[in-house]
């Protein structure tokens, strides 16, 4: 690997989260939630929030960087970046952009954040209502194809058909998420364990996804503070060093009307090799993984594309025993993930990866050194991140 890398030059030094609320139940505005999470992250890092001079966001975040900088009294704003695309594909990319800005010397402390208050704004799981439609939507909406659950189900079913996979790996992901959430008081589903029987009996949303295969819709905010490795030595908590980050998309995967050439791909096929090359490790070295699950089915595809198993091995690899902490072969979504902790568009997964390598997760993987995050499978762009402890 050349010198031109972010590896170990940047660390995540602070994590801040508001209470995670059920959808539309946040008692305060989305903008205030963002401010609260950023203040908490600065406190966790042991820095003055006013020293933050960079802001990195994704998924068309409604909370404008300049407004945040003004409200929080930042001394200066020297970097502000936003990743293209909606959904969670930009979660790790926003961290990657923060790393790039720090290594380039654009900023000294960059905050990555996500804030959501769906009571104040619209829902993601419902279609907008209009009389007419034109453009790509004219080829899908009149057929009742509207929402991510359907897009991801179509792709997941094709993958399952190709590799002879039944619903067992999907159930394993949902049950593992709920299992991990029972240890995590931050989780919206803390205190609400899920049994296999309840999973099987739950209503279909869109086949093959039962209710519990789908992420929640939540209100809240999460924020992470990043700084350069030399400054990280002075912060309060053990730093989580960024080993590698990757973002992007494969050939024509943004094609509209279900025309992505590699239809059932989670879209990490070109990212994962770049990620592991930068990190200088292989999938075998990863101690736990945080894999974005808007819907359970995307997890098995993502795990396969990162080389944790072959697509033909999904049935043997993606089992409840293998993906649960502390003793699974590869614990996945150890805080409960989008399905049972909260749906902060996956930024809570990055926070959990940091906790795992700091050693303060509520479902700690013993001696966890390396944690991988995969953000937003089956959308475009997607992104990846590996953090580790030194």
């Amino acid at each position, binding site marked *: 690997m050349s010198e031109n890398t972010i590896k170990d030059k940047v660390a995540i030094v602070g994590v801040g989260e508001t209470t995670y609320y059920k959808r539309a139940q946040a008692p305060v505005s989305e903008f205030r939630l963002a401010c609260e999470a950023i203040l908490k992250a600065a406190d966790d890092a042991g820095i003055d929030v006013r020293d933050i001079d960079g802001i990195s966001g994704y998924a068309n975040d409604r909370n404008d960087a300049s407004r945040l900088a003004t409200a929080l009294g930042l001394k200066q704003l020297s970097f502000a970046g936003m990743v293209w695309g909606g959904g969670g594909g930009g979660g790790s990319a926003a961290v990657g952009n923060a790393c790039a800005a720090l290594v380039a010397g654009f900023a000294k402390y960059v905050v990555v954040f996500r804030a959501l208050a769906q009571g104040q704004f619209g829902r993601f*799981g*419902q*279609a907008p*209502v*209009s*009389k*007419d*439609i*034109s*453009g*790509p*939507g*004219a*080829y*899908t*909406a*009149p*057929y*009742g*194809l*509207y*929402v991510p*659950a*359907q897009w991801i*189900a*179509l*792709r997941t*079913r*094709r993958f399952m*058909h190709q590799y002879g996979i039944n619903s067992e790996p999907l159930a394993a992901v949902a049950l593992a998420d709920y299992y991990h959430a029972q240890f995590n008081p931050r989780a919206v589903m803390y205190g609400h364990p899920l049994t296999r029987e309840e999973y099987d009996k739950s*209503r*279909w*949303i*869109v*086949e093959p996804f039962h209710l519990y295969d789908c992420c929640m819709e939540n209100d809240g905010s999460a924020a992470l503070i990043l700084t350069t490795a030399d400054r990280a030595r002075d912060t309060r908590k053990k730093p989580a060093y960024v080993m590698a980050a990757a973002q992007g998309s494969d050939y*024509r995967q943004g*094609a*509209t*009307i*279900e*025309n992505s050439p590699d*239809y059932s791909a989670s879209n990490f096929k070109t990212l994962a090799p770049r990620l592991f090359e930068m990190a200088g490790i292989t999938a075998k070295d990863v101690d736990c993984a945080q894999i974005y699950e808007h819907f359970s089915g995307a997890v098995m595809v993502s795990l396969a594309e990162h080389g944790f198993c072959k697509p033909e091995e999904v049935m043997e690899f993606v089992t409840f025993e293998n993906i649960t902490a502390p003793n699974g072969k590869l614990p996945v979504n150890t805080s409960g993930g989008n399905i049972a902790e909260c749906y902060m568009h996956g930024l809570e997964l990055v926070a959990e990866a940091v906790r795992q390598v700091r050693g303060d997760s509520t479902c700690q993987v013993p001696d966890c050194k390396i944690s991988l995050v995969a953000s937003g499978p089956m959308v475009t762009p997607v992104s990846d991140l590996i953090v580790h402890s030194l």
Partner: protein
Amino acid sequence: MAEDKKHYLPEGLPTPRAMRNGLDKEYWEAAKRRELVVQRCNSCRAFQWGPEPICHKCHSFDLGWHKVSGRGRLFSWVRTWNPVHPALRGACPYIVAVVELPDADNIRMVGNLLGDPAQNPPFDVDVEAVFEDHGDATLIQWKLSK
């Protein structure tokens, strides 16, 4: 039988309109004539879908339209149980299909698979286009080939 209904899904979903810039005008006009046309590059003959102003293969801006047979292959399908639009309350479950067109570089189209919403057709089975009129717009739907 669902096939006897005039429309697979109830009224109230948005009516498709051609784009204001004219990019897909020919598709919607052909559908009214009960023809399925798809975008094809006049320069390199590559097919692409959805319509774009540039050919993804050779970057020509000289794009045209090509009439295809309406024969397709059922590439993927899902059954939706949760009404994602107010017009779909009471209409669930229904099937959304993704169909490949073998005589057009396997470009894909979306439609409903007509017939019983409880059916479980195999993947890659042959389907054919059906034209469903909605006032001044015509939707292309799909049914299993006999």
